[in-house]
């Protein structure tokens, strides 16, 4: 092998070495930074970033390498074959391009990572050894195969680490800059380590001076110029990148702040970490007051808070929508639709929530108005229908009554006088009897009309009916801010009945209860519907937290046309009473300690009155 005395002994200028390491670190930082920009860009801009980035990074790596070479002093003059030097620079640029391309892909699978790092590592190693080959000195260069292999492997391993770091760091977050600095330092040191391993692999044996055509010597000034040029290029790249990032951030922020919607992002638990300007302007909240759970405490209407519900929705991790009132800076509340979509990591864990909050107050109000109008219309229609019915009843019943009264008066007058004949009285009384029968038939007919007798009564589960009604009236309760609670006993006996009629009774009782509870202000309005087994069948109770029924009115409450409500027509309870009666049960009012308690019974078997 080669004897040690035969080789030229080189020495390192350590301040130059330090400078080369510094360049490596700066180049690494630029590489990481540029990877982020390339990732963010699209189309031609991306290509421009990729080429300029590769050029800057390549120059950086090459400069480090070259600096490292210049830090190595041999006891003989060393010249450089400049075409080869340029070739090494080209290889560095190509290796950088590969690195940037791979690191800026949206996904990086292991094969891509390995291929990329092999190419990059090979590129860097190639650059190094091509650079070495550019040396022109009176010596032959020999390489230690072990160390060369080592240096190539190191290049590949470091490239892999660098790629993974760049890939990880390309997203711009809060901690990006410090982490990037750390990673860049690590990478810079690693690249240097590879370089100096490669240098160590070479030994120089004195020989005759080789062909010096195209060879140049590097004066100390040139040495510094390389460093300065490289630093300027790298600095320019990083600055451009930063300006571009700032501009695109500004653009994005401008878009987010001026969108006609309130935009926010929240942590996985739902605490806000960003609220756009429109959100802050609308609510009048400062950034501090809105972040965390402040948006809930300071802007959401107390009745719409239900913090637990929100937390559950956030915990569930599914996109969701909620309607809530938000306080405007002037103190008025408007209805908003809040939409939230989670962003997940690779394992499916929610890492962030993004959402918008859109003003739906006008829509909501017109919905409310429409519903109110429909209700009013329904009420008017009912009143008109009842008015017509009343008129019909009055007319139909008053005709025979008129005849009865007139005939009766005739009889009385005759009897008061002296001369009366039995025949004429008999004729009048017969007519009275006929008209009485006729009046009763009219009433019977109207009753049938009202009751809409259903011949086929099904065996019903009363709990099912209660639940159906609960669904029907849920909106009504929410709108009136009344909570409707059910306490249903399971396995109740089935009762024969008309589901529609029984629903009608329940709806009637609950609507009355809603009106009663909303008329008072003490406590949260609540309605409790209970079902239970009783002796003959089932018992259903509707209890409200309203003011209750005045004792003086208790006896009249089921009378037709009796009402305590300003807009009432006094038919609801009276019809309900008849319906329950026709089912063989009884509707009654229990005087309780608090609120009104209406209850009805329904017999379980065969006791139905037709």
């Amino acid at each position, binding site marked *: 092998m080669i004897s040690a005395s035969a080789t030229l002994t080189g020495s390192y200028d350590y301040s130059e070495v330090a400078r080369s390491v510094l360049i490596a670190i700066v180049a690494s930082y630029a590489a990481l930074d540029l990877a982020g920009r390339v990732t963010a860009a699209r189309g031609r801009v991306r290509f421009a970033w990729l080429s300029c980035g590769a050029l800057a990074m390549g120059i950086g790596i090459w400069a480090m390498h070259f600096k490292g070479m210049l830090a190595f002093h041999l006891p003989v003059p060393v010249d450089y074959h400049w075409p080869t030097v340029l070739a090494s620079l080209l290889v560095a640029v190509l290796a950088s391009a590969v690195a940037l391309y791979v690191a800026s892909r949206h996904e990086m699978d292991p094969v891509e990572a390995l291929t990329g790092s092999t190419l990059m590592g090979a590129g860097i190693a190639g650059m190094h050894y091509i650079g070495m080959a550019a040396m022109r000195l009176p010596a032959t260069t020999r390489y230690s195969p072990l160390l060369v292999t080592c240096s190539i492997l190191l290049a590949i391993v470091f490239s892999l680490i660098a790629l993974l770091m760049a890939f990880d760091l390309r997203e711009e977050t809060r901690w990006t800059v410090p982490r990037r600095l750390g990673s860049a330092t690590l990478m810079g040191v690693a690249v240097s380590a590879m370089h100096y391993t490669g240098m160590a692999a070479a030994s120089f044996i004195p020989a005759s001076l080789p062909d010096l055509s195209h060879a140049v010597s590097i004066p100390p000034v040139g040495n510094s110029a390389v460093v300065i040029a490289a630093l300027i290029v790298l600095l320019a790249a990083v600055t451009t990148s930063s300006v571009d990032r700032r501009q695109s951030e500004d653009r994005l922020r401008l878009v987010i702040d001026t969108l006609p919607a309130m935009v926010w992002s929240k942590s996985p638990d739902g605490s806000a970490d960003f609220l756009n300007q429109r959100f802050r302007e609308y609510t009048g909240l400062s950034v501090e007051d809105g972040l965390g759970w402040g948006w809930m405490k300071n802007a959401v209407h107390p009745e719409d808070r239900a913090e637990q519900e929100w937390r559950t929705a956030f915990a569930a991790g599914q996109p969701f929508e909620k309607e809530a009132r938000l306080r405007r800076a002037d103190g008025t509340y408007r209805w908003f639709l809040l939409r939230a979509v989670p962003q997940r990591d690779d394992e499916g864990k929610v890492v962030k929530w993004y959402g918008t909050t859109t003003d739906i107050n006008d829509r909501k109000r017109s919905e409310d108005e429409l519903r109110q109008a429909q209700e009013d219309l329904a009420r008017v229609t009912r009143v008109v229908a009842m008015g017509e019915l009343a008129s019909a009843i*009055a007319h139909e019943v008053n005709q025979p009554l008129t005849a009865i009264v007139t*005939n009766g008066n005739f009889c009385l007058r005759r009897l008061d006088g002296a001369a009366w004949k039995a025949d004429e009285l008999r004729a009048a009384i017969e*007519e009275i009897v006929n008209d009485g029968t006729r009046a009763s038939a009219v009433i019977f007919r109207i009753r049938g009309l009202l009751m809409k007798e259903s011949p086929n009564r099904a065996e019903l589960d009363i709990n099912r009916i209660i639940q159906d009604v609960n669904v029907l009236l849920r909106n009504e309760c929410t709108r009136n801010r009344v909570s409707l609670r059910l306490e249903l006993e399971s396995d109740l006996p089935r009762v024969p009945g008309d589901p529609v009629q029984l629903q009608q009774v329940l709806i009637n009782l609950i609507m009355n209860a809603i009106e009663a509870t909303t008329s008072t202000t003490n406590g949260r309005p609540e309605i409790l519907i209970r079902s239970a087994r009783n002796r003959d069948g089932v018992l259903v109770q509707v209890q409200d937290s309203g003011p209750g029924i005045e004792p003086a009115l208790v006896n009249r409450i089921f009378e037709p046309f009796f009402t305590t409500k300003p807009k009432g027509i006094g038919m609801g309870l009276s019809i309900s009473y008849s319906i329950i009666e026709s089912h063989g049960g009884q509707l009654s009012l229990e005087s309780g300690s608090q609120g009104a308690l209406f209850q009805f019974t329904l017999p379980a078997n065969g006791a139905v009155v037709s």
Partner: protein
Amino acid sequence: MSEPKSIVFVVDDDLSVRSAINRLIGSMGLQVELFESAQGFLASKLPNVPSCLILDIRLPGISGLNLQRRLAEADIQIPIIFITAHGDIPMTVRAMKAGAVEFLTKPFRDQDLLDAIDLALERDRTRRQQEAELAVLRERFECLSPREREVIEMVVSGMLNKQIAAQLGTAENTVKVHRSRAMEKMQANSLADLVKMIQRLQVFPQ
């Protein structure tokens, strides 16, 4: 009753009501004529005796209120008592404004109906009497000569005989003769009597 017998017309579509009213009013000694529709009543010939009409509001075909209007248009001045099983205030107001005597809601008190009938017949009787008197006066007035009418018009307007003579260009005595002959023909006892008669006749523009 010494006067010509009165007639009560009843228009109601309900047989029982007609029958009962017939019995009640008949027992008071009044003549009753029953109709089940407005058309039937319009088709009948009305005798020239004091009468009134008991009219149901809700009738098939022509309603009670429409019948009232048609009678007014035809200048048939028969007092109307409305009866209805279901009346409202606007309906009542309309009927009363159009000159109804009474508006009764079924079932009504018999005395209310009988009082209304009395009132209605009395009103009709008075009207008929006044019309008869007016007819006599009109007949007398027809007998006056044109010159007598001219003189009477001036007398009634308050002019003295002398003034009348000057205006007509005749002697005062001639005026006196015309005047006393006219008084005689009109069967007026005094100047005041004559003025009243002329006012009722409404023959001269005021």
